[in-house]
């Protein structure tokens, strides 16, 4: 099977969907002539032309809102935010318009837009550029949220997101763009709302999303190597819809859960998952659900300190041991 990067997987997914559906357009700052700030769309302008691959001015509220309006009339815009952090400039368009339009119209309108871009810290770009908005996004009924942790999922989820009839916030990761894995050629879909058990285990469920999964897999290796602990690693892949069954089944098997994510702790996805487990699997638990997040402060710039602020293999390993005590 071909090994391709997360970046190439995203490009392949968008290209296949552009070829498949004349209503799909890719739009954003520097996506066309500059080939994308992170080169996700490299070569796409040359291949698909300026009608399908569109450079926008720096006007996030304007062009994201425009995408919402275009989606209402049946286009399937894929809107790139150069950094997902800039979603805050378009907050009203996303959370008042995209999220509510179907409801307020009594189901007369739907909004098949994808808003995508990197949503992560760890690259020393400071607090304004390092937001992780998955819990804020998923808070809003009407919005769907996906966070692929690897190239295979990135492609399959992107294709599903573009075909989805609801607004999808698709959170990528600059640190993962260059990471590669086996990805089959051609058509396959990863459905929204289906978690993936990345590693089977019996002693503890390490559940999470995004890049934290890559770290969790390494921590699980360490736990096995040093303590003969068999950790199960569950990648949610999508936050809303959320695969509650897979979460509960895993916890019922292992009786312990550590949730790992790069977000800040307050009202995080992990907080939601902990609540679901406590509601629906309380009797199976041998320990409180533990969460590992970024240290609760805006993203610090200082490169060595930012490393410490974020989840790391070492911190996950320690938190898992604490949960197993």
């Amino acid at each position, binding site marked *: 099977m071909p090994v391709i990067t997360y970046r190439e997987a995203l490009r392949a997914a968008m290209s296949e969907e552009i070829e498949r559906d004349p209503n799909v357009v890719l739009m954003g700052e520097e996506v066309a002539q500059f080939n994308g700030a992170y080169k996700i769309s490299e070569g796409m302008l040359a291949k698909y032309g300026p009608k399908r691959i569109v450079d926008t*001015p720096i006007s996030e509220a304007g062009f994201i809102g425009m995408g919402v309006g275009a989606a209402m009339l049946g286009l399937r815009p894929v809107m790139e935010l150069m950094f997902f952090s800039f979603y805050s400039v378009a907050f009203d368009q996303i959370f008042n318009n995209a999220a509510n339009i179907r409801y307020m119209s009594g189901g007369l309108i739907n909004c098949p837009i994808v808003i995508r871009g990197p949503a992560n810290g760890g690259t020393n770009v400071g607090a304004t550029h390092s937001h992780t908005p998955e819990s804020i996004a998923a808070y809003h009924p009407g919005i769907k949220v996906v966070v692929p942790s690897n190239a295979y999922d990135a492609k399959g989820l992107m294709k599903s997101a573009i075909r989805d009839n609801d607004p999808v916030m698709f959170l990528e990761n600059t640190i993962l763009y260059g990471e590669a894995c086996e990805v089959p050629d051609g058509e396959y879909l990863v459905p929204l709302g289906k978690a993936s058990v990345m590693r089977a285990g019996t002693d503890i469920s390490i559940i999470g999303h995004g890049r934290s999964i890559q770290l969790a897999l390494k921590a699980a290796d360490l736990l096995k190597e040093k303590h003969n602990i068999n950790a199960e690693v569950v990648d949610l892949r999508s936050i809303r819809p959320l695969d509650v069954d897979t979460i509960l089944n895993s916890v019922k098997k292992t009786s312990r859960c550590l949730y790992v994510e790069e977000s800040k702790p307050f009202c995080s996805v992990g907080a939601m998952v902990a609540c679901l487990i406590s509601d629906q699997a309380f009797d199976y638990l041998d320990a409180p659900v533990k969460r590992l997040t970024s240290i609760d*402060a805006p993203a610090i710039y200082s490169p060595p300190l930012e490393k410490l602020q974020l989840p790391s293999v070492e911190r996950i390993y320690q938190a898992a041991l604490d949960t197993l005590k």
Partner: protein
Amino acid sequence: MFADLSLNNGTLAPHYYFNLKAFPVTKKPSSSKKPEVTNLGYDARQAPINIKLGQDEKIALYRDMVRIRRFEERCLRSYQQGKIGGFLHLYIGQESIAVGCTSVMGKDDHIITAYRDHGHALAVGMGMNEMMAENYGKVTGCSKGKGGSMHYFDPSRNFWGGHGIVGGQIPLGTGLAYALKYKGLKGACMAFMGDGSVNQGAVHESYNLAALWSLPVIFIIENNGYSMGTSQERSSAGPSLAQRAEGYGMNWAIIEDGHDVLAVRDQVGQALKLAHDKSLPSVLEIRTYRYRGHSVADPDTTYRDKAEIEAYKSTKDPLSVFQLSLLAEQTLTTELIQKIDESARAEAETSAQFAEASPYPSLEDIKKDVYWEIDNPADRKSVGALFFD
């Protein structure tokens, strides 16, 4: 030159109009980097604000531009050595704007800018040590290593950052002006932005607020022709960026000679006077050019050609142009030029050593400077948990 709507009652005075395309590309790139002539578009030396400048003041303007350039060249080296993380946006080529604008500031005048902030910071008197240490993420940095190159601040010098979100600083600048007016101070705020920033809604909302409430704010567009890889004509509709002010009944002007520190002083000085005397806002579009990529990570090979950069450098380099003019009037000598240059290089080198030798913040520092109340526990009035695990 400067349109004063309050005087003309809606009739605009003539402005500088200019070729809307990015700087004309000369077909044959000039090999020499230094202009042969002083290349002043009009003789800004004769403007009242400049005529009274003493020799020392002119030398200081020149020195400040040299210091910015040498500091940034040293930053670039450190970045290439892996000492600086994230982004590094260099101001090289635009020095005349920060220096010209800040040179007319009085005690109650304030500035705010975007992420390309090294020039403004040095121009208001911030030290190279604290700036370089910030780039290195050290605790001795101006923001204790928390903000990085894009997020310098020094309220004690009326410098309010250093902002990473394009256009996000403009409402803040408008708010600084509001506070000045509210407090009855005779001051103004210069709110700097790039040519790409003018298309953010927040900028337009600020224009309206400033005009509606007669706020003493000067919106300064540093038009270097590009927002990242997008040329101005590919991002902005309308005849010019500054002219959008007309829609709000605001004063506006285009400064074509943005490379000329004295021209910048002249025009900004007029806008500042309008803000001080009549509490009127203005939009100034200053034509300039950046020599380096958008940030150091930008390979700068796709959206413009080297000839365009060389053409600008060879005729309009702000340092060379001013240097030639000062040499001609014998304010500068070749010895003094050399001395200024050496001392700027040494200062930059020292700052790199200072940054290198400084410690990083501690793990505990991550949670400091988040809440005023946590940093001032004796004065805390709220109760309950502010931080979570």
